[in-house]
């Protein structure tokens, strides 16, 4: 074995060891690295009342209630992960991307069993990017209602041009 080969194996061994060590550390701390917990986790094991929790999930369609106390807007909405849902109470201005069906992260404290007092609400957008016209065409065609979750398979719309979408919109019968 030449010196170069020995050095190559040494480098490979060191990187492999380091990679394994990093992997094990990340596995061990996995539950702390997650940015938010889901409603079913909060319902199953309610965190202590004084602990700040980040709750992530989808805003349930039709659950958003907005009122005003003086100048501050107060909103109440349900956040779900498909299995359980938690009602979030929030005082303040919601981010622009907030809507029904959007994923959000609410930072605050849980008040068992099903309520959550948020001090801050962040909107989480998903990995889909499409022009307004394409979204409109999908909605018109009845293929997608953004209030109930993510859009259909990307192959059905990612080649659709704005012109195609405009044609589809004008051709479709007005339903809503």
């Amino acid at each position, binding site marked *: 074995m030449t010196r170069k080969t020995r050095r190559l194996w040494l480098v490979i061994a060191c990187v492999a060891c380091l990679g394994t060590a990093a992997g094990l550390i990340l596995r061990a701390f996995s539950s702390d690295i997650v940015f938010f917990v889901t409603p079913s986790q909060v319902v199953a094991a309610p965190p202590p009342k004084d602990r700040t929790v980040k709750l992530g999930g989808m805003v349930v369609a039709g659950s958003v209630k907005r009122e005003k106390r003086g100048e501050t807007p107060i909103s109440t909405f349900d956040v779900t992960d498909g299995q359980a849902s938690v009602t979030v109470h929030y005082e303040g201005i919601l981010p622009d*991307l907030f809507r029904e069906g959007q994923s959000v992260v609410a930072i605050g404290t849980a008040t068992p069993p099903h309520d959550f007092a948020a001090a801050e609400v962040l909107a989480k957008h998903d990995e889909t990017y499409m022009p307004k016209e394409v979204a409109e065409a999908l909605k018109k065609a009845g293929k997608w209602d953004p209030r109930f979750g993510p859009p259909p398979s990307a192959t059905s719309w990612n080649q659709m041009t704005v012109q195609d979408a405009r044609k589809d919109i004008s051709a479709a019968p007005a339903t809503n």
Partner: protein
Amino acid sequence: MNATPTFTARAGGFFHRYANPGRFLKLGARLQPWLTWPAVVLTLVGLGWGLFFSPADWQQGDSVRIMYIHVPAAMLASGGYAGLALCGVLSLVWRHPLADLAAVEIGPVGACITALCLATGSLWGKPMWGTWWVWDARLTSVLVLFFLYLGHIALIRAFDDPQRGYRAAAILALAGAVDLPIIKFSVQWWNTLHQPDSITLTGAPTMSSSMLWPLGLSTLGISLGFAAIVVARTRAAVMESRIRALLSSPRRKGGAA
């Protein structure tokens, strides 16, 4: 010694063809215009298309245009560090002199593009998420990458004997490479505020082709630009070391006489 050349010997022979500074300078001079001009044209076309002519996003509106800078910057931040790690292997195993010079030059360029990625991400996060910064796995691992770049820049210049700096920095580059898969897979392994990748090897891109084209062009253009800057800097470093050698050799001879 073996009669048949081993893998490391053969690979070393291949790498060392371009370790000759004269040969590298010749190749670099030929390569430079083919990197620089396509980089300028593709970046201008990609960014112009993305910033002015591509459609706005259905929910993000015009803020989505930050993507045409943020995504190429993020890819190159990781790609540049992968380049540093490769230079580290070449330096530690084959003692390749050009790899050391290239590592010195990649560091600052990579740090700048990582800073650009973090800054544009922050500017994008405020209007969309409602926050400049969160400590989720993706954002934190990219910040760690930025500090790794800074550490590399400092370490490789920290010793009076440059060879010791090259060794130390090569080890740091290799150790830091552990961060690259963490950045890539952070959005799949853990839940994060940052969304998962839109463009994957396995599925159709969840991005309208009217946005994907300008993004592809600007990514290609900025990548070529990164390569052009690194090649230009490395050529300058080779020439600088030659000039230093020329300047110091007659004086040494004169002193000895």
